[in-house]
């Protein structure tokens, strides 16, 4: 299977890096360093090569060293030995708040052109909170997974949000009914597109996991808890769209009072359950939840690989935390068998020693990376 490879990464004034020129040089890469040394920043830089806000969801203006000014991330990537360069960073003109991209040195026609070339999948320690937090966090998670498979999902979602925010504003200002109707039509259309994208992702991911894409990690099932999804299960999309539009028109007075929309893509929640027992993941232990997340990211990578024809870059931030010895061994065995390149971080290089024959290790400290040998004797526990 074809896979996306990171061959070289250069950072300028990005987070804690003043300047970095790094070549991972291996398919499996371990970045070890103390907390705060900049390991996650490095993965974040790679995640920004796609078109979203990266694995921390940070705003463009906050990513520069010292919190202000210009920054840039550039990478040489390769697919089947065919190299290309992707760069992103701030607009060179002050106030450096606008994000810009370069593909092989030139401005792309649109961000979609970048999204079509770069695919990433990631797991971070912050995702441990996914099961217990508000529904909005799970929606964002689901939408990010869907956008990695189908970049148009991000555009539909942005259009939905613009239409919903516009309608809120016009309602609050007591605006023109014909204008409101325009936004309601757009909201209905984009809400159906967003929901259909979420349903497709859940369906494909569930199928991949059921087929063993993340074995031996636990098989989970994603269940979309959403009225629009339920309607799309039984009616043609155009009928659902018309129903939503009519519901929005009918809810104007209530929505003006509440300052929100009574129906729409923002009402969905995602339930993650154990496929075998049907038990909600929110009830599982921390270790079990982490294993489920690893399973989801591996299953997602398989879905991305199939739909886009190339395995995505895997960014695994602290993947070993909360995993017991058996699960760690399973993760290492799985990574060995994948086509995807994986960049992993950890505070203890020794914990990755079982991968010593297959992975490159870099020590992360003082805003730089240096190649290091794996500790010869794995830590005794």
């Amino acid at each position: 299977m074809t896979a996306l490879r990171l061959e070289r990464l250069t950072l300028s004034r990005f987070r804690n890096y003043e300047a970095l020129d790094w070549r991972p040089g291996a398919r499996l890469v371990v970045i070890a360093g103390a907390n705060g040394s900049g390991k996650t920043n490095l993965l974040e830089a790679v995640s920004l090569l796609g078109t979203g806000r990266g694995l921390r969801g940070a705003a463009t203006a906050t990513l520069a060293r010292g919190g202000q000014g210009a920054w840039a991330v550039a990478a040489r990537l390769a697919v089947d030995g065919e190299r290309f360069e992707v760069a992103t960073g701030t607009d060179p003109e002050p106030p450096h708040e606008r994000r810009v991209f370069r593909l092989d040195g030139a401005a792309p026609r649109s961000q979609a052109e970048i999204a079509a070339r770069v695919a990433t999948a990631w797991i971070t320690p912050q995702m441990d909170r996914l099961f217990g937090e508000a529904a909005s966090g799970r929606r964002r998670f689901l939408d990010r997974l869907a956008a990695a498979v189908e970049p148009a999902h991000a555009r539909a979602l942005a259009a939905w949000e613009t239409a919903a925010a516009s309608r809120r504003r016009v309602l609050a200002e007591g605006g023109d009914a014909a204008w409101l109707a325009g936004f309601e039509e757009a909201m209905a259309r984009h809400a159906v597109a967003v929901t259909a994208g979420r349903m497709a992702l859940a369906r494909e991911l569930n199928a991949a996991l059921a087929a063993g894409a993340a074995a031996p990690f636990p098989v989970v099932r994603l269940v979309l808890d959403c009225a629009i999804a339920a309607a799309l299960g039984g009616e043609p999309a155009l009928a659902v769209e018309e129903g939503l539009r009519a519901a929005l028109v009918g809810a104007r007075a209530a929505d003006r009072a509440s300052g929100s929309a009574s129906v729409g893509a923002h009402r969905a929640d995602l339930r993650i359950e154990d496929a075998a027992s049907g038990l909600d993941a929110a009830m599982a232990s921390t270790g079990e939840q982490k294993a489920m997340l690893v399973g989801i990211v591996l299953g997602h990578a398989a879905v991305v690989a199939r739909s886009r024809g190339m395995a995505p870059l895997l960014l695994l931030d602290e993947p070993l935390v909360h995993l017991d010895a058996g699960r760690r061994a399973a993760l290492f065995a799985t990574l060995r068998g994948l086509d995807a390149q994986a960049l992993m971080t950890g505070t203890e290089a020794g914990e990755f020693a079982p991968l010593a024959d297959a992975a490159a290790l870099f020590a992360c400290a003082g805003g730089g990376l240096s190649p290091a040998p794996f500790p010869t004797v794995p830590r005794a526990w």
Partner: protein
Amino acid sequence: MGGPEVERLIALLAKLPGMGPRSARRAALRMLAEPETRMLPLAAALSEAARTVSACSTCGNLDTRNPCMVCADNARDRSLVCVVETVSDLWALERTHTHHGLYHVLGATLSALGGVTPADIDLSLLLRRLDGTVREIILALPATVDGAATTHWLTEKLAASGIAVTRLAHGVPIGGSLDILDDGTLATALKARRPVE
């Protein structure tokens, strides 16, 4: 640096679309290095255009003539009026050679988040043109949320006239502005226009 004259030049250049202080400084320095060949001809062209070009009082196009070349062309189909947001969109459609009717430049699209309300869009010029010769109005506004909402709004405003209102069949990505689309895409969108539901 360079005195107040140069600073003023840079400040004016920086206000142009696509320019910022850095690129304005670069452009100013390039021109100042060769004033005879680069700067004076530009100054002459600017002043000539400012003196001779104006907005067409019928459609809003920019031209040295008023009415503009499109409005004055008797070979064009006067029963067909294509409504665009900007002159740039009008010129983009003209490059495709697929629209043989007239145009109307709206000057803006509604934008709830950008603070452009129905009160900011003057429809009187357009409504005055609907004197019986116009049979179809094609709405060719951007494929953005605001463009779609403006299309909807305008369709309702034009409903009373009884004239057929159609819109571009956008195979256009969300957020697409007409003037950055390639000519083939635009031509297809125009041919496949459909009635607004």
